[in-house]
């Protein structure tokens, strides 16, 4: 509990390179945390709020980007690929849950890694995740623009030669940033409504499609071998689609605000992976039942729209495009919020200037951190080329996942006195080991460009740490 001190006390001690004299055990209560000065911090996010953050960040790619590509790679067995992806995600989610219940603080992965492995790995992860989230948000916003354009085209609204994608992405980016800057309760409420509406559309779509493929509506479904290309592509496809599970660890970034963290954090993280996994597997099942995998592959990234069209015509296509629009909104909004928290976490530890965690009293929002999230996003959207950046974002997330698994093993080995997680991973070496190896392995499947850019960003982060914050000690400091 030594990190709430105002701008002065322990903060400057840490900066001066001293470790605080003693480490007190965390006294986190179920409903509120108490700071050193005796101020209480109310925990207000419940289980459903946590799940909404996890699902809202993740859902999207597995349904709106990958079905065609995955079916082309593995046939109907692509459903198994998504299942494998979910299992790997759980191998990372479980260690993350344990760390989060032991350290229920804002900051997520950065916090765990800096406390378990030290300030340098922490700074590298903290700074690169900030950029990674910025890249991901830009990618979601451009996705929003594409869906907006597609909805207009599908609805028959003639726009002539006016470009739609980038301007609408920019406009919406400005809207989301402003909403978070000035909205009092709107941002969180928006997130819940968007995720709720999205899940409703998907459940209807998948329910109808599922019944249809079982022949309820009297149409012959497409009979096909389960794994027409053999077992190996099932695994390579799993590597491809793992991107659609990135984001479950975002739940840990709000750990400081979650009620009964010992129970709700692990539940929210595991439940969001499971919910999203089931939706992805069901989507592949429905899609490969409606069309053969070759036809699906030929549709590419719009496969799911064609599936919806084959069920209920243009209306279905528009409905699923709207769902895609909602998915990009929820992912973009959740990412902006996570970015702001990532900035706060590193600035609190003085990895970057404390100025970045200033907030204004009038709106009660962290305006500097939000601007450091929204500003670069808009620049990137305006200049385009976000797809490469999206893969770089995945790269940086995977590095963080890998290091979180390592952090768990280190924590368990050292087991500091204050380390008392409410949830302990069974067979932690196996689970965290598999999580680390799988995360690192997936990086190898990425394009060389993304790998090079990713490594460059990590080196730059390390350089910043050496230049600005080399005297910051964080290992074992709660």
């Amino acid at each position, binding site marked *: 509990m030594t990190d709430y001190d105002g701008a002065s006390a322990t903060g400057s001690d840490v900066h001066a390179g001293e470790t605080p004299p003693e480490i007190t055990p965390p006294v986190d209560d179920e409903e509120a945390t108490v700071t050193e000065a005796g101020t209480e911090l109310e925990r207000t*996010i419940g289980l459903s709020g946590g799940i909404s953050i996890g699902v809202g960040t993740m859902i999207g790619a597995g349904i709106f980007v990958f079905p065609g590509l995955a079916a082309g790679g593995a046939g109907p067995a692509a459903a198994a690929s998504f299942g494998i992806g979910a299992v790997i995600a759980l191998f990372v989610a479980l260690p993350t849950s344990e760390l989060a219940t032991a350290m229920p603080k804002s900051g997520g992965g950065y916090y765990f890694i800096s406390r378990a492995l030290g300030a340098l790995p922490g700074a590298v992860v903290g700074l690169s995740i900030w950029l990674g989230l910025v890249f991901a948000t830009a990618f979601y916003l451009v996705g929003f623009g594409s869906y907006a354009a597609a909805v207009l085209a599908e609805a028959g609204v003639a726009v002539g030669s006016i470009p739609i994608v980038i301007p609408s992405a920019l406009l919406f980016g400005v809207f989301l940033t402003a909403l978070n800057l000035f909205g009092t309760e709107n941002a969180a409420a928006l997130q819940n409504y968007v995720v709720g509406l999205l899940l409703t559309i998907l459940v209807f779509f998948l329910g109808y499609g599922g019944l249809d493929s079982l022949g309820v509506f009297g149409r012959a479904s497409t009979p096909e071998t389960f794994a027409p290309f053999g077992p190996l592509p099932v695994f390579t496809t799993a590597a491809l689609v793992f991107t659609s599970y990135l984001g479950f660890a975002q739940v840990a970034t709000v750990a400081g605000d979650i009620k009964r963290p010992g129970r709700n954090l692990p539940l929210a993280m595991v439940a969001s992976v499971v919910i999203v996994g089931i939706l992805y597997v069901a989507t592949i099942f429905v899609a490969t039942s409606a069309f053969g995998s070759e036809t699906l592959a030929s549709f590419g990234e719009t496969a799911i729209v064609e599936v919806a069209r084959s069920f209920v015509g243009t209306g279905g296509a528009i409905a699923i495009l709207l769902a895609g629009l909602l998915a990009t909104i929820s992912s973009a909004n959740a990412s902006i919020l996570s970015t702001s928290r990532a900035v706060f976490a590193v600035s609190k530890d003085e990895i970057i200037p404390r100025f970045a965690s200033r907030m204004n009293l009038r709106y009660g929002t962290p305006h500097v951190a939000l601007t450091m999230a929204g500003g670069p996003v808009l620049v990137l959207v305006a200049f385009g080329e976000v797809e490469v950046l999206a893969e770089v974002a995945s790269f940086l997330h995977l590095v963080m996942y890998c290091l979180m698994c390592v952090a768990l093993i280190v924590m368990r080995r050292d087991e500091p006195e204050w380390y008392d997680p409410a949830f302990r991973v069974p067979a932690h070496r196996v689970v965290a080991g598999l999580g680390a190896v799988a995360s690192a392995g997936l990086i190898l499947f990425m394009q060389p460009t993304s790998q090079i850019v990713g490594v460059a960003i990590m080196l730059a982060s390390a350089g910043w740490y050496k230049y600005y914050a080399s005297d910051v000690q964080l290992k074992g400091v709660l």
Partner: protein
Amino acid sequence: MWGDLPGEGLTDADLAIREPPVILLPVEVLEGQTIPDTVVEFLAPADVIILGYHVLPEQTPTEQASMQFEDRAQEAVDDIAQSFIDAGGDPETRVVFTHDREQTIDRVATEVGATAILLPNPTGEISEVLVPIRGAIDGGRLADLVATLLAGGAGHVTLWGIAAGEGSEFDAESAVDRAAERLRGRGLPAEQITTETTTAMLQIHDIVDRSDEADIIVMGEGRESLLAVLLGEDAERVAEGAVAPVLVVRDRDPDTEVADADENTADADSHPDADDPE
């Protein structure tokens, strides 16, 4: 429930404050809210807990706000505490950063065992206390609170029974009589107590209308209803419209009821409204 029991038969055990009142004073300190000196003076005889709070939008981590504003919030709360100390009180203080005001007030009220919560409004010298009684109020706590605050002073209390109209099971007449008897039983001179009853459909509206006659209003939480969900809790609505501060008498927490049962045997109707036939 006031009318259910015979009003007579007060024993000697009634002639004392049973449960010393504990008043929770939520103050939105960083918004510049303060407590007028007259209110401090009036509340000083009771145990007071000053709860300085600040509500943040969901996108702001409470930790981030506390880093920057904790000192300022603590100072503001300490200033208020000092004014109570000057008035002869011994207040406790709490400072909370939250996303949800209701949740925080409920939690702290339960933790400190508050019997009443003050919803502040501007007011002058406090001598006239208005107690609208609509059936939903913990009689024991009400009597303890009013008797403690008015003890030894010249303040005057009006017990105002409000029946909902024809066919209402609530017997306003005997409810106010019973309340008056309790107050006298706790040592408040009879000439400082006035009782009256009316019938009203729009109770909240009428209470707000009459608030200019009073310097402070003391009322119950009101029961949970669809209307309360739509429009806000009764007491909150009164506080919003009224020109006087409102002291809300809290119902007993269900889990502490058993522990309290013993001391209430001579005073059976101070149980919360779960037993209310209405």
